[in-house]
Each structure stands twice: as structure tokens, then as C-alpha cells.
């Protein structure tokens, strides 16, 4: 039963990912950027206050990064400052426009993963993103000798796949949570004062089986969904380091960025699991009503992931039209 379920839930995700990749290859033109090369960031999140100010300082940040890459060719100390700058870039970028935090936190809330798994998910998705960027630049720039436009195209394909997969993860969560909600409501209509499973056993309420929900396949899909979209900043840094003849410094900087991203996303993931744990504890003693309320919240979080993936996907598809 269990292996079959696993297959069932992974298959639609993979189909959607494939559809996204195919769509990305055949259907998408380049994004409308002022000079026709270079991709804009995944533009999600509304940074405010200090975060926004730091983002607007990115021009100065870029100059410092490039200076640090140049300097690290000469001295080891400069390599440390490059690592520090990259780490800071990762922290603030994830807090600002990065979309990974939204996907991961909503996924965690809906699936009810533990804090430990949530933090693990944050680090795994950031690491996957770094590896994607490094792989993309290594293959396209180092091996193939691709042009900027070809690299943009490849990044766009990966982006589209990522967004399709995010939508798929959200759809899966929504279907699962919707079914759970329907079960609860039906039992409520049947007039039983407490919640029964199919075998008439009391269904354990969420807090009890939090750790088992979601499952590794769902977590892996969420990591993959976020991880196959390479960060624009990392690509630029890698290409520049390569041009300067110090690709490894770029790789190190990319991992430092990923670490910074992971720290921010993990902090938000902790909030998500904390909120979920709190909600589950509140619902635990209350019987059917609170259980339904909790199921509704989970369904909403699943739908939020679906909506986010869908919005990003539509944005990618709409870009050529705006040109």
C-alpha cells in the first residue's frame, strides 16, 4: 500500500515538472530586460524597511562583490571577505525577493513537518540551488562555451520547471488536505461527536502524527521545486569568477550565498513549524470543530503554494508578451 501511494503522489509532480521543462524549451521567449541579456530575479516578496533599503543598495553590493572576487585572486584574506559578502548577500536576498522561503514555509505549515525537518529542508533547498547554479555555469560556460543568451534560455527553462513543480507540490498538498477535510466534515454530518477513522478507531489528531505527515517524497519534491531554479546573483558571480580565472572562488562564494539563504529560510521555516505546532496543540483537545479549522488552515497553505507556483509560472509565460 505504502509504495503504491508514494508512486501515486510523485507521478503527477513529475509529469508537471516535465510539462514545465518542455514548455520552457519550446514556448518561451527571452525576458524583457533592458540589454537583452541577464535574467531578472524571481520577483517574489515585498521587502520593507531595512530589507528594502539593503536591496536598493545592491548596486554597491555588486561592486564590492566584484572587487572581492578580483582581490581573492591575490590574497587569502580577500577570499574570506568574499565569503562574508556572499553570506550576507544570501541572508538578505532570501529575506527580500527570494521565493524559496514562501514555498518552504507554506509547505511546512501544510504538511506539519517537525522543526528539525523544516530546518533540514531549508538547508537542502539552498544547497540544491547552489549546485544548480554551479552545474549550469560549469556545463554551459566552462564546457560548452555558451553565449549569455543561451545561458539565459537554460536558466529560464529551469525556472519554468521550478515553478511548475511548486504548483504541483501545492496541488498535491491541496488534494490531500482537501480529502482530509472532506472526511472530517462528513463525519461531522454523520452526527458523531468525535472523530472516527474507517476502522472506527479514533483518528489521532494532528499533533500526534505530525512527524509522519508529508513524507520524504513530498519534502524531496519541495526541495527540488526550489532547488532547480538557480539564483541570478550566483550565476553572475560564477561567470565573473570564471572570467577572472578563479572559478573555485566563485564556487565558494556560491556556497556561502547558499548558507546565508539557508539561515534566513530556516528562521522562517522555524516560524512556520512553530505556528503549526501551536495550531495543532490548540486543536488537540477540542474534538471535531477545531480539527476542521486546522484542516482548513492546512488546505489554505497548500492552496497558497499552488497559487504561488501558478503565479510565477504565468509570470514566466507572460514575459515575452510584455516585451
Amino acid at each position, binding site marked *: 500500500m505504502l509504495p503504491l501511494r508514494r508512486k501515486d503522489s510523485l507521478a503527477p509532480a513529475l509529469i508537471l515538472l516535465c510539462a514545465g521543462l518542455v514548455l520552457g524549451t519550446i514556448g518561451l521567449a527571452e525576458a524583457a530586460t533592458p540589454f*537583452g541579456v541577464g535574467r531578472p530575479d524571481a520577483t517574489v516578496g*515585498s521587502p520593507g524597511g531595512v530589507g528594502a*533599503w539593503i536591496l536598493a543598495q545592491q548596486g554597491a553590493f555588486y561592486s564590492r562583490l566584484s572587487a572581492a572576487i578580483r582581490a581573492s585572486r591575490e590574497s587569502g584574506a580577500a577570499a574570506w571577505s568574499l565569503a562574508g559578502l556572499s553570506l550576507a548577500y544570501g541572508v538578505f536576498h532570501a529575506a527580500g525577493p527570494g521565493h524559496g522561503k514562501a514555498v518552504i514555509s507554506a509547505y511546512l505549515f501544510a504538511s506539519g513537518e517537525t522543526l528539525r525537518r523544516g530546518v533540514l529542508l531549508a538547508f537542502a533547498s539552498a544547497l540544491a540551488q547552489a549546485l544548480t547554479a554551479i552545474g549550469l555555469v560549469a556545463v554551459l560556460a566552462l564546457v560548452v562555451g555558451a553565449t549569455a543568451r543561451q545561458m539565459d534560455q537554460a536558466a529560464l527553462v529551469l525556472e519554468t520547471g521550478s515553478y511548475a513543480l511548486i504548483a504541483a507540490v501545492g496541488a498535491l498538498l491541496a488534494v490531500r488536505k482537501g480529502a482530509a477535510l472532506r472526511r472530517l466534515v462528513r463525519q461531522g454530518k454523520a452526527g458523531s461527536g468525535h472523530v472516527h477513522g474507517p476502522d472506527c478507531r479514533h483518528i489521532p489528531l494532528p499533533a500526534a502524527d505530525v512527524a509522519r505527515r508529508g513524507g520524504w517524497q513530498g519534502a524531496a519534491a519541495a526541495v527540488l521545486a526550489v532547488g532547480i531554479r538557480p539564483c541570478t546573483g550566483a550565476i553572475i558571480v560564477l561567470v565573473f569568477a570564471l572570467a577572472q580565472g578563479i572559478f573555485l572562488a566563485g564556487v565558494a562564494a556560491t556556497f556561502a550565498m547558499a548558507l546565508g539563504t539557508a539561515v534566513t529560510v530556516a528562521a522562517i521555516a522555524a516560524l512556520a513549524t512553530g505556528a503549526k505546532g501551536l495550531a495543532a496543540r490548540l486543536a488537540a483537545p477540542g474534538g471535531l470543530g477545531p480539527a476542521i479549522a486546522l484542516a482548513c488552515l492546512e488546505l489554505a497553505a497548500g492552496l497558497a503554494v499552488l497559487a504561488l507556483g501558478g503565479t510565477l509560472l504565468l509570470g514566466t509565460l507572460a514575459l515575452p508578451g510584455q516585451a
Partner: protein
Amino acid sequence: MRHSLPAWLTLLAALATPGPAAAHPHVLVTSRSEIVYDGQGKLTAIRHAWTFDDMFSSFAIQGLDTNKDGTYSRDELQPLAQTNVESLKDFDYFTFVKLGGKQLLLAPPTDYWLDYGADRLTLHFTLPLNTPQSQGQKALAVDIYDGTYFVAFSLDETAPATMSGADHCALTVNRPKPLDPAQAAIAAQLDVTDPGTLASNPAFGASLANTILVNCP
């Protein structure tokens, strides 16, 4: 505890909710310009030389050294120059020309090419006016800026602008003041994919403007 759940959810939503697209500089451009007058003293064109930052430059030139001789010739870079000027069209070339307060229409760029040296690409292009204009006593103002702040423009420190064919006129430049945090917060919210964004933020756009002013006595 019962009250803290909504607070948690609100905080979580605030942190994780997708919002408007965020723009911030991805390309830094140092601009040098020439204001071109013809033999009759009519204003005919704006000629730009825009130097990109080293990171954007190294990204843009990838794979373009087609004969593998280690240098990037004008011919090798010409397809990229073509892409650049074609893409700039949707952004009005970031160049806004006003004569006596009235906006002048620009024709598509002519005479465009790229050169590469000291790790930096420079895009050269000429923007002819739709119709040459007699300037007379009117003030000419050429604004160079990206209202969505995707491209951060700054005028060259030593040679921001020159004139040709208008020796009796006087040229001055105005550079934008650095963004204060409030303006920067607006900048981070602007949608780079929507060139019309500026229309709803005229004051902000103007605060970014690099302006070349020419007055002829």
C-alpha cells in the same frame, strides 16, 4: 496561548507572502554622451557611450570570442550590440529629451557597436531626433535614468557630456542625490518587467535622473 496563534500566522504571512516584483540594480552603467548639432546649428542626435560594470560585462560577452583569439572584436560583439539596442527600445533607451519643456521623439538607434577593454563592455549608439530642432533660446534637457532602477546609471566623473557643432552654447550636468532609505524602499518595490511603472512614480523617477542641460545664449 490562544491569542498568540493569530500573531504567529500574521508574522508568518508577512514574511512569506508573495508581493509585488522587486527591482534593484543588476547592471551598473557609466554614461558618456555627446549632444550633436548639425551645420545649421540644429539639434540632430544624442550619441551615447555606456560602459557596463565588470560582472555584467563578463556575463554578456560569454561565448562571443568566436575565433578564440582571446580578444573580442567589434564584429564578434555586433550580434550582442544588436540585441542591446533592440531590447532598449522597450525602455525608451532610458533617454528623455526635452526642448523648452516639450518632449522630443527619438528615432531608432543608428551606428551602434560594442567595444571591450579592461574587463568592461562599452555600448556606443546614436539616437537621432525624429526631426532636427532649432534650439533658439529654449533650454535643452537630456535625462538619462531607469525609473524601475534595474539599471543604475551614473554620469562619467571626468567626461559626462560634450557637444559638437554648438560652440556658443553652455553645457552643465546634474547628478542625482544618493537614494535615502524611503526612496530606496520604493525602488525595491518597482516592477522591472513593466516599463510603464515610472508613469505612476514620476517624482521618484526624476529623483534618479542624470540630466544634461544645454543653454544657448
